[in-house]
């Protein structure tokens, strides 16, 4: 493998790494100011939705929102750290290894968990479903890529172990 081939896409990986680090920072800030963000969302958008939400009691609905917010950020960390590890592996030219498929599986599980959280969030604010559907589709796409990668690894193994 020539040096040019080895460095293929390294700038893309670097940019994605920077974006991931920024997202981790955003998540950390969101965790620190979680209460205020929830309060803001509550006052700006949710207050007008009383007739659409199953939980009408504010004393239950607001803590539920905060709880779901923090569980959601936990899964966001799971996804982001897995992306970080995956990018690290790709940077070290270890693309087609079994560990990467495991990382992608974790990522898709995180995406689908966020969908589940947003589904529960419909109790408080029905519009969360739209965010959840994005998560669900992301999870499915990552899962598809994982299956393709798994097949590619099997094919490479077959080729490597042909004498």
């Amino acid at each position: 493998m020539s040096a040019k081939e080895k460095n293929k896409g390294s700038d893309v990986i670097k940019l994605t790494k920077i974006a991931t680090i920024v997202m981790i920072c955003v998540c950390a800030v969101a965790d620190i100011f979680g209460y205020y963000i929830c309060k803001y969302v509550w006052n700006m958008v949710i207050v007008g939705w009383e007739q659409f939400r199953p939980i009408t009691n504010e004393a239950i609905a607001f803590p539920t929102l905060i709880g779901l917010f923090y569980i959601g950020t936990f899964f966001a960390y799971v996804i982001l750290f897995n992306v970080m590890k995956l990018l690290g592996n790709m940077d070290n030219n270890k693309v087609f290894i079994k560990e990467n498929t495991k990382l992608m599986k974790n990522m898709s599980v995180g995406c689908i968990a966020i969908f589940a959280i947003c589904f529960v969030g419909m109790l408080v604010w029905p519009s969360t479903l739209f965010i959840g559907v994005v998560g669900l589709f992301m999870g499915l796409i990552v899962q598809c890529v994982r299956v393709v990668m798994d097949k590619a690894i099997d094919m490479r193994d077959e080729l490597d172990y042909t004498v």
Partner: protein
Amino acid sequence: MSIVVNLDVMMAKRKIAAGDLANKVGITPANLSILKNQKAKAIRFSTLNDICLALDCQPGDILEFVNDGKSDEE
């Protein structure tokens, strides 16, 4: 996999070292050790031909089928 490679037995019979055989056959010692350690998933006819030529034997002397009732996928 129920195909067993008995290359080491044949090599002992012919009293040839792994490095010498790899040189004669024209494959790397790493690939020869993959073949010897039953890790190989496939063998090219050209490689088999060269091994048989180098060891002066039949493919059946090197490869053996052991029926354990399993297919490759299991």
